[in-house]
Every structure is written in C-alpha cells, then in structure tokens.
C-alpha cells in the first residue's frame, strides 16, 4: 500500500510537471510569426490537454480519498457500502490503533502501513500465485538426478568400486489428459532408456492406461529401481525369474475397482517382461502369441490404525517363447507386505515385513544338442523362489534389517542358492543414504563357491525433483 501511495504521488508530480512543460511553450508561440487561427488552434489543443491532466489528477485524488477513508461506520450507523475497487476489510483481526488527525483536516481513519500491506497482500496473493505459474520455464518438466555407487567385497568376486548408475528422471504433464515421464540410466555398460512412458490422467471409472517402456506391474520390488530397493541388491528370485527390474515395452491398463475396499486390477501386454530377460528381443517383431500378457490383482487391509497388509498376486503368461520351441511360459507370484506404523511416530518408528514368492513354469533346454541328436529338447520345469525381509525404523535416520532368500535354478531346480543378509541403512537426510550390508551365500550350483561371504557399502544421493510415488511406498 505504501508503494501504491508513492506511485500515486509520483504520478501527481509527473502530471504537474507535464502541465508546466506544456505551459512553458504556451507563451512562446505568441512571439513567433504565424496566423491567428493557427495560434488559436494550438491554444485550444493545449487547453484540452490541460483539462485532461486536471481530470486525471482529480481521479487520483478521489482514489487516495477512498483508500484512506474509514473502513467501519460509527456504532449504530448503517454499514457503509465499499466503493467499487476498494479492498475488503482485513480477514486477520488487528487491534484498534489510536488515530490523531492532523490539524486543519477532517478526522479520518488512516490505516498504518503494516495493515495496508496485509490487506493488499491478501488481495493479490491469488493473482501472484497465478502470475508465478505463467513463467515460461515453469513448463519445463521436473528433473531429478540420482547417483548410486557401491563398494563390494567377496571371496568369490574380490573387491570393486561399482558405479551402479547415474539416473536422470524427467516428468511432467502433457496436457489435461496425460502425463509423461522418462528415466535415463547411465551405467558402466552404457546409457539406456530405463523407462519412457505416457500415462493417462483423466480417464473415467478409475482407469489408467500406460504405454511405452515402463516397469510392468508384476509383484512389488520388481517395480522398484535399483537405488530405491530396501537393500543393496535386487533379490535373486527377481533377478533370475523376472530378469531384474520388470521393464517392459507395451501397454498396461489399471483399474481401481469402485468399491469401498482397495482392490486394484492390472492387465498388460508387452514384448517381454524383465530388463535382463534375454528370451525375447525387443527389436524383432513377433506373433501375437509371442507377447507376454499380465494380470495382477492387489488389495490392502487396514487391520488396525497401526497395522496394514498389502497382498498381491501376479501372473505373466507368454503363450509361445520362440527360442524355447514355441512352448509357453508362465511366471506366477504372490507378494505380501505387512507394515506396522504408529501414526504419531510414522517418521521415526515402524516395522515392515515384505515377502515375495514366485513360481516359474517354463520349457527349458533339456539336453545339449549333439551331432547325433541336433534338435534341442525342451522340458517343462517348475522352479520356486522367494525372498523375505524385515526392516525396522528406529529413528528418522537408522533403518536396520535382514533379508533371507531361497531360490531354485530355472534350468535345474535341484540347484539351490540361499542367503541371509543383515543390513543397516543410514538416512543422512531424505536425499542421501548410506547402507552397509553383509551377505552369507550358500549354493550347490556348479562353478560357484559352496559358501561365500559378501560385504557391500552403498552410497546413494538424489538432487533436484523428487516425488513420493504411491508405487514406491
């Protein structure tokens, strides 16, 4: 308000100066040679200009008078009608202030600068917020960057500083109907588009359609990026059966079932599921029977205010896998997550138990082809695997946990690997994390040590935009 008054005064001074400038040459032309009629025209024009300046000054005076008039009528008087354009009374209660009118002027309420400032700020706050949104750069997508690096040591694999990934995430709305996001991941193997997908945002009936490259909705931790996992490495069963992250090129429809209980259903069609799944080449077109089809049903039970259970079941079915003699493959999984979260201490206390159990039913190479029997023989094999972890939240910073894994080899289910891994995560802040993990691994697979001990130290950090996605809970 202080600025407004200053502006008005400045304008009044400028107007007066304009009048003086106009009046300056008013007498001069009388000394110049020229006809009377021309002189009269100039005088008339100047008079008109002067009249406009006077009118403008009167308007400004009126505006100042309105702004400094008392906001409230005396007791008993009818409420005064605010003049058009005048600010409404303040929404914040302010204590009454003693007012002393200057000598020779009519008594008038003069709000102090702070009160006027508050009134004006309240009025213009929505407009300021709206104006802020019109900056051109506001249309740039949100960008985040994640660095994930691990030092590892094991008797079998020796020691290494492993630069796991430098990941750039970009996301933004496309239009009122959809948004898009991309995850570009650089590793020692090169740069890869990990995800690049379009997601609808305004479909009716609780539907969402996703298309492009994304993590298919299979299980729970398959949809997590490596750096988002609760432990250093992806569980073996997900690495071997799914193929790491559930990356898939395709389309997926998700339906939030319109009932009072949370039930979510996903159906998808993809070239394949699994970033490291080498059964199918994304670049080679295929018959409809060679796509992978997914169905997932998940639900949630709020057992108490403190205790919640997520339960899901997923099935990925490929009718014909070309490199396996056009035999079908079925990957079935059940995931269970139990969360204990005291609401008043959710930031620094809690317990989570997460488990996934997978069954892979697939025709695998039975015998190695020889000259005598050159045709590869495929035999259906069922392999099982699971992981289960328990993680506590002791403070906002310290998260200890333990991970147990047991997995059968897909080709020879009698070959089993199991491991147990205590780990300790230190969240230096929401954006930086250190994790120490030990793993004892036992395996009867040929070519591996029957027993190995592994140590990991992981350091992960994120800068820029970050989101708390529902999927990453």
């Amino acid at each position: 308000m202080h600025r407004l008054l200053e502006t008005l005064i400045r304008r009044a001074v400028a107007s007066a100066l304009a009048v003086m400038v106009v009046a300056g040459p008013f007498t001069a032309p009388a000394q110049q040679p020229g006809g009377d009629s021309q002189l009269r025209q100039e005088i008339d024009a100047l008079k008109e200009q002067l009249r406009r300046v006077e009118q403008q000054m009167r308007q400004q005076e009126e505006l100042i008078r309105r702004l400094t008039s008392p906001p409230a009528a005396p007791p008993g008087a009818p409420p005064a009608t605010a003049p058009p354009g005048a600010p409404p009374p303040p929404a914040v209660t302010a204590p009454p202030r003693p007012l002393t009118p200057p000598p020779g002027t009519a008594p008038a309420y003069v709000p102090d600068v702070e009160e006027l400032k508050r009134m004006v700020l309240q009025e213009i706050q929505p407009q300021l917020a709206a104006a802020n949104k019109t900056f051109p750069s506001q249309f740039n997508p949100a960008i985040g960057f994640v660095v994930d690096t691990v030092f590892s040591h094991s008797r079998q694999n020796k020691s290494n500083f492993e630069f796991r990934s430098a990941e750039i995430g970009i996301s933004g709305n496309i239009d009122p109907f959809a948004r898009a996001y991309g995850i570009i991941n650089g590793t020692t193997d090169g740069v890869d588009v990990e995800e690049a997908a379009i997601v609808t945002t305004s479909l009716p009936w609780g539907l969402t359609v996703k298309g492009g490259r994304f993590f298919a909705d299979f299980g729970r931790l398959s949809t997590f990026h490596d750096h988002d996992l609760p432990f250093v490495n992806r569980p073996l069963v997900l690495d071997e059966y799914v193929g790491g992250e559930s990356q898939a090129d395709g389309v997926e429809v998700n339906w939030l079932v319109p009932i009072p209980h949370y039930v979510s259903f996903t159906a998808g069609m993809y070239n394949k599921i699994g970033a490291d799944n080498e059964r199918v080449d994304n670049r080679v077109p295929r018959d409809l029977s060679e796509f992978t089809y997914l169905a997932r049903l998940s639900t949630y039970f709020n057992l108490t205010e403190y205790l919640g259970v997520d339960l899901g079941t997923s099935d990925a079915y490929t009718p014909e896998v070309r490199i396996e003699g056009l035999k079908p493959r079925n990957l079935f999984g059940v995931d269970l997550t139990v969360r204990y979260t005291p609401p008043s201490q959710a930031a620094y206390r809690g317990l989570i138990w997460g488990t996934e159990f997978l069954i892979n039913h697939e025709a695998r190479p039975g015998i190695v082809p020889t000259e005598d029997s050159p045709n590869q023989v495929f035999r259906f094999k069922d392999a099982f695997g699971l992981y289960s972890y328990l993680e506590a939240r002791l403070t906002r910073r310290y998260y200890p946990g333990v991970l147990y894994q047991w997995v059968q080899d897909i080709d020879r289910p009698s070959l089993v690997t199991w491991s147990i891994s205590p780990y300790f995560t230190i969240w230096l802040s929401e954006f930086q994390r250190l994790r120490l993990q030990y793993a004892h691994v036992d395996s009867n697979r040929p070519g591996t040590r029957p027993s190995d001990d592994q140590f990991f130290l992981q350091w992960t950090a994120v800068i820029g935009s970050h989101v708390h996605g529902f999927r990453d809970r």
Partner: protein
Amino acid sequence: MRRLLLPVLAVVVALLPADVGAAKKIRIVTTITDLADITRQVTGDLADVTSIATGVEDVHAVPMKPSFAVTLNRADVVILMGLEMEHAFLPGLLEASRNPKIQRDQPGYIDSSVYVTPLEVPTRLDRSLGDIHPMGNPHFNLDPGNGKNIVRAIVDGLSRNYPEHAAAFKKNGDAYNARLDEAIARWQREAAPLKGKKFVSYHPDMIYLAERFGMIQFGTIEIRPGIDPTPAHVADLIERMRQNKVDLVIRELHYPAGLASTVAQSTGAKLVEIPSMVRGVPEARDYISLIDYNVRTLVNAVKGG
C-alpha cells in the same frame, strides 16, 4: 487367463455400490483434522467430511495407505493446506485415486492457503537449506488469524463447486469467523505473558503462532527443516540457548521426546508439549479448542504452572 478374468469381474460387479437415488451429501476429504473441523463449520449438514490425518501425525509423514486412495476416489472435493505441506503423501494418493475431479488445478482441489500471507518464503532454493518449502512455511494453521483465511478459502472453493449452496456456505463461514474473532480477542488477552518469550521448537512449525502472540523463535532442534540434529548442532544450540536465556522448548507431540527433554533440562528452559493439529490431544476436539489448548499450555509454562 480368460477363466480367471470372468469370475473376478463378476465379483467386482456384484460389489458395486448401490447408492443411486439417495439424497447425496457432498463428499469432502481434507488432508488434516483442522481443515475437517473448519469445513464442517462451513458446510453444516450439506457434506460428509473425512480427514486423511487423524491429528496425531507429523503432517510431513502421513502414511500413504491404499485405503486413502479409495476415500479420495469417492470424493467430490479435496481440501488441503497447500504451500506443499502435504508433499509427502497427497500427490501420490491423488494419482492413485484416479479421480479427475480433485486433481491439482481442478475445481475440486481446494487449496486453503490462497489467502494466507506466507512467512519464511525462501529467497534461495537449495537442498543444503534442508527440506524447505519453496512457497513458504506451510504451518499457518497454528495462527488463529489464519483460521479466518482458511474459512474464506473454503467458502470460496466450495461455492465455486456448489454455487447453489454458496449463500449457506457464506452464512456459516461468517458465523464461524465471528466466533473466531471473539476467540482471537480472548487469546490475545490470555497470551499477553507470551510476548517477547524466546523459544526453540523441534521443527520450524511454530512461526505463525509466534507471530500472532509476539513470541521469538530462537532456533530449532532440527539442524535444518526435516534434517535430524547432529551432536554438534545440539551442543551449539544448548550453548547459545544458555547465553540468550531462552524460555521455552516446544516439542510438537509427533517428534521424539528424549532430545527435546534433554535440551530443556540442559538449558533451564521449560519444556512444553503441544499438538500441531486438531485431535492431536483429546482436549483439542476442534480448531478453537486446539488453539485454546496451545495458548493455555504455553501460558502455564511461562507462568511456571
């Protein structure tokens, strides 16, 4: 797969709600309990109001339960605090809700901060400053003066969505604001002993309350917003508090008790424990009783009660 799909669909269709034809109230979901109480005051019997938070949570760490996605899916309107206060849970839940009516910038997305003058708006956005809010400190609900701004935003927002009820919303809002005016005048008198008192809180969420009652925020136990303290920070804070004779340590009830107690004992400051939302303690049944409780607790502490 077809054999699996059909029974699932049949079960789902059978479970569809049959509320067609019933006189429907406006279904409003608020993020916190303060907004739920104020919204009930504004809507009267016209709406069913549900809050995501129960009142005891840290509003920056409300658990993102799938059941909230269902609640939001069925909502006509969502009312939030704004200034990115609900950043940790609301955007994710809104996306999961699949409800186009209440997505950001839709009419059903009512931001109660639009008439609030934010404090502590950062002049620089940098994560080295902690988990700062780019649009300013979002804990404005603890200043009852801003309660009136919340009422105004809710009345405006609901009237935009339901113009047929605009007169009722305005009437109820005006009546509630009159009650708030009376209460604010009373709180100003009662809180006179708080004027000029220095305090340390766990998180920088007391600034609006401090501004209202003339208190002075000396520091926070957190090293930066959202960043847990280090031993060096706590030692430095204790030393500076002793030198500057800080009067109070305020622990918001959703933060750990031990450290706040240690800081208070080490400095001779009085430890005060207050809720930051309606229903944070049993006495804080509604917005007015929340401010009542906070003012009374602070004044008692200052008076040595």
